[in-house]
């Protein structure tokens, strides 16, 4: 599949995503410059992690006004696949392509550590190589990752099954009580770690699947996100086994 990784001046996970798509999954990958209003016929567009334009204002707030984002919006609205990771997720929220907003982590500090996610939907192009209920271990690395929304919006999100990943305990249970603070590190509403749009072609997630996609790191739980969406499922599963 022809994949594009958007490069903002402050993107810093762009090379990591490129590496997984290109060198682990053998896909065709291009870097897409933020100043160009052109997706160069990419079928999958990834908004990677980082600090798009420094994010001194609010994560992703400036990126929404970049020329490439108009094209990303058009692509998403016409059913094309868009994956936003970390800062990419924050940007997708700012564009309105996904519902919700982010505030600072409950610790008010940057948090870099492994968390556990439960796959809530396995029928999306991004999650078809997982099973519903499967538990994944994945690193997070962010300061603004506490997902919020009004109760009505959150109810609607749940009813339309747009919650894709949820922070859980290592054995896949909802984190409650004392455990809640430990496993829902950033304090997201309803422990939401990733959401999609109505059509299911746009996914945003705070954890970094590209950081756990090679055996050398002792964790390949994230590889299937890319393998599935790139249509490289067979090969991806080969790597997993």
């Amino acid at each position, binding site marked *: 599949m022809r994949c594009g990784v958007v490069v903002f*001046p*402050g993107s*810093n*996970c762009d*090379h*990591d995503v490129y*590496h*997984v798509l290109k*060198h682990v999954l053998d896909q065709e990958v291009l870097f897409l410059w933020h100043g160009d209003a052109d997706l160069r016929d990419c079928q999958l567009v990834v908004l990677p*992690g*980082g*600090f798009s*334009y*420094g*994010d*001194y204002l609010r994560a992703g707030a400036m990126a929404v006004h970049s020329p490439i984002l108009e094209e990303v919006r058009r692509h998403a609205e016409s059913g094309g696949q868009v994956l936003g990771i970390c800062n990419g997720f924050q940007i997708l929220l700012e564009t309105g392509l996904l519902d919700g907003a982010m505030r600072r982590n409950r610790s008010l*500090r*940057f*948090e*870099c*550590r492994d968390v556990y996610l439960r796959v809530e939907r396995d029928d999306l192009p991004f999650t078809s190589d997982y099973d519903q209920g499967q538990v994944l271990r994945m*690193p997070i*690395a962010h*300061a603004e990752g506490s997902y919020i929304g009004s109760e009505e919006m959150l109810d609607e999100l749940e009813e339309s099954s747009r919650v894709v990943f949820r922070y859980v305990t290592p054995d896949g249970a909802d984190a409650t009580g004392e455990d809640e603070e430990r496993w829902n590190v950033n304090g997201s509403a309803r422990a939401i770690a990733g959401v999609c749009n109505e059509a299911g072609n746009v996914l945003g997630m705070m954890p*970094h699947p*590209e*950081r756990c*996609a*090679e055996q*050398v*790191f002792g964790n390949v739980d994230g590889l299937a996100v890319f393998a599935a969406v790139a249509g490289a499922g067979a090969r991806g599963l080969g790597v997993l086994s």
Partner: protein
Amino acid sequence: MSAAQEPAVNQRLAVTMGLNKEEYVRIRELLGRKPTYTELGITAALWSEHCSYKSSKVYLQEFPTQGEHVLQGPGENAGIVDIGNGWVAAFKMESHNHPSFIEPYQGAATGVGGILRDVFTMGARPIACLDSLRFGAIDAPRMKHLIDGVVRGIGDYGNCVGIPTVGGETGFHSGYDNNILVNAFALGVARRERIFNAVASGPGNPLLYAGSRTGRDGIHGATMASESFGAESESKRPTVQVGDPFTEKVLLEACLAVMRTDAVVAVQDMGAAGLTSSAFEMADRGGTGLRLDLDRVPLREKGLSPYEIMLSESQERMLLVARRGREEEVARIFERWGLEVSEIGEVTEDGMARIKAGRKEVANLPIAPLGKNAPMYRRPVEAPKDLSKRQAPPEVPQPDDLAGTLEGLLGTPELGDKSWIWRQYDHTVRTNTVIGPGGDAAVLLLKGTPSGLALTSDVNPVYCSLDPSSGGSQAVAEAVRNLACVGAEPIGLTDCLNFGNPEDPTISWQFRECVHGMAAACEALDVPVISGNVSFYNETEGKSIPPTPTVAMVGLIPDLASLPVAHFTNSGDRVLLLGEDYGEFGGSAYLRLLHGVEQGRPPKVDLRAEERLADLLRFLAFEGILRTAHDLSEGGLAIALAEATIDGGLGADLAVDIDPVRLFSETQARAIVAVAPHDVERIMEEATEFEVPITELGSVGGDRLKVRCDGATLDAQVEDLYRSWSTALPRALDF
């Protein structure tokens, strides 16, 4: 301040700028006239301790700087070693102590920024940082504020630029109550043929200024870092620079892009002493001269005087030497990344720096006499009078409850879990981190090759304080041991030598002794010093920090396939102790943290024994026999075993034929390992072959750490050890 308002140049002014009387006479004689105000400021900055190394140079020559991997030794922005497969690594460590004590957030942040620029000016893309931090007692005034600020500063800067902080160390000691240490290390990689040197060559080539505009921040920061603190250090806040990591990120990308073309000759960061040091150092290395027109320097505000422009330490600025005729090409690349470029002068061949502002020449200075041939001092040295008293053998009380003693030690911020700190640093970005913070050494994957790099930083200031020579050797030996625990062969080190006021003979003695001990260990263990930094004047109102020669070492792992880890991984694995214990407690964590005693000779450093141990560990790791390897350091065998159980949540049932208190002895050249039962015979044979003493201690398994000694048994729940250890720092900080 316009030129007309500049103060009159005289000896008194020279002294307020940090020059001594002899140095003022020297610059007058060099010029054959009285220097201008701007010239005097430039001279004071270049001859400051921070820039000139005038009190340390005579001793630094002792370090071995050559080795089979070394491509660039000390004297450049960073040293460079060959890491195979056509790749090189550039690395260096630098202190940002003074600014971090005054303004912790910006001080630490700009420390990271500066060291990253030192690495990417060599043409290398930074891939990892380490930070070695020394704080005072946690309950000392301002200390929690300093810890919080430093950690946030490092995190916010490195996280935004996207360089993982993969390791380092943090210590607490009341000797740092009024002078904390922030030592930042960065490592970058480049293709061998892509290395850049910061040498201004080619007369007629343009000098280009790129990056942030120049403001009034940080003026005379280098001089400030060359003075002791009095009671008024707070008032020096304006000398601390302000960092902008986003600009750093784009500057990094633009510089690396420009260096991939053939349009630039050299790049140097405007770091300490700003435009002054970058311009003078590049010309000094090239044996060339330069002409600068200060009217063309991009300014943040109007009305900066030539003196301020030359001495500003505004961050994220670069000076480039381009090839004449290729300026447009360079400018286009910077503009793509949203950065300004301005031609501010050119390289000349007369060895002079001619600096113009308006129509006036404000400085005309010879470069080599101010740089290479700056003053050099052999300061008087004298051992402290109380040395023999402090080295007297300490009394070693027996612990009454072994488990309680162990939990007590694990529950101190010194030996407790540091994840509260390193979770605030992105340590996995760039997807090279195989082993992150918390182990003996960090391990990075070198993508596209089977090999990896190992990084560690080490020093024990208490040892150095009791015996600087032995402490210096120990820092190097421990770093080698930490690398060996992940199977890495050391290929080079960089250091940050943090001391008090060198004009005090006992401080100069400490410095000489430390360097001597480090050099001896580097020779014996075959580790060249390829870069480094000296930070003097870490003292307040006459009270100096403990001597702290921080060592950061880089090692090469030929194959990551058989990497051991620092914790127990398999029930049933056999645990063995490598090395021999001599019951040494001088300067030990046991005496210091539990009994408040810092006395005695620190553990003896047997460099031959260290070499044999490191050789054995590397061999075993390469052969794939080791499942666990963990070095013994502060807190001795007991702490090493506790750490090995905590991380994996697996206990062990062990026995060792020693007096119980010796579980906490800090004899060097030791490590614990765990292997599969069928490998025990093999490891015994290899240890004998390598002449390393070996003792079988028992097995991994269960949820308790049990160690039977002579007459007493240490018996603790791993869960309890974990609780003491993991809550130590957050509890003490109480944020």
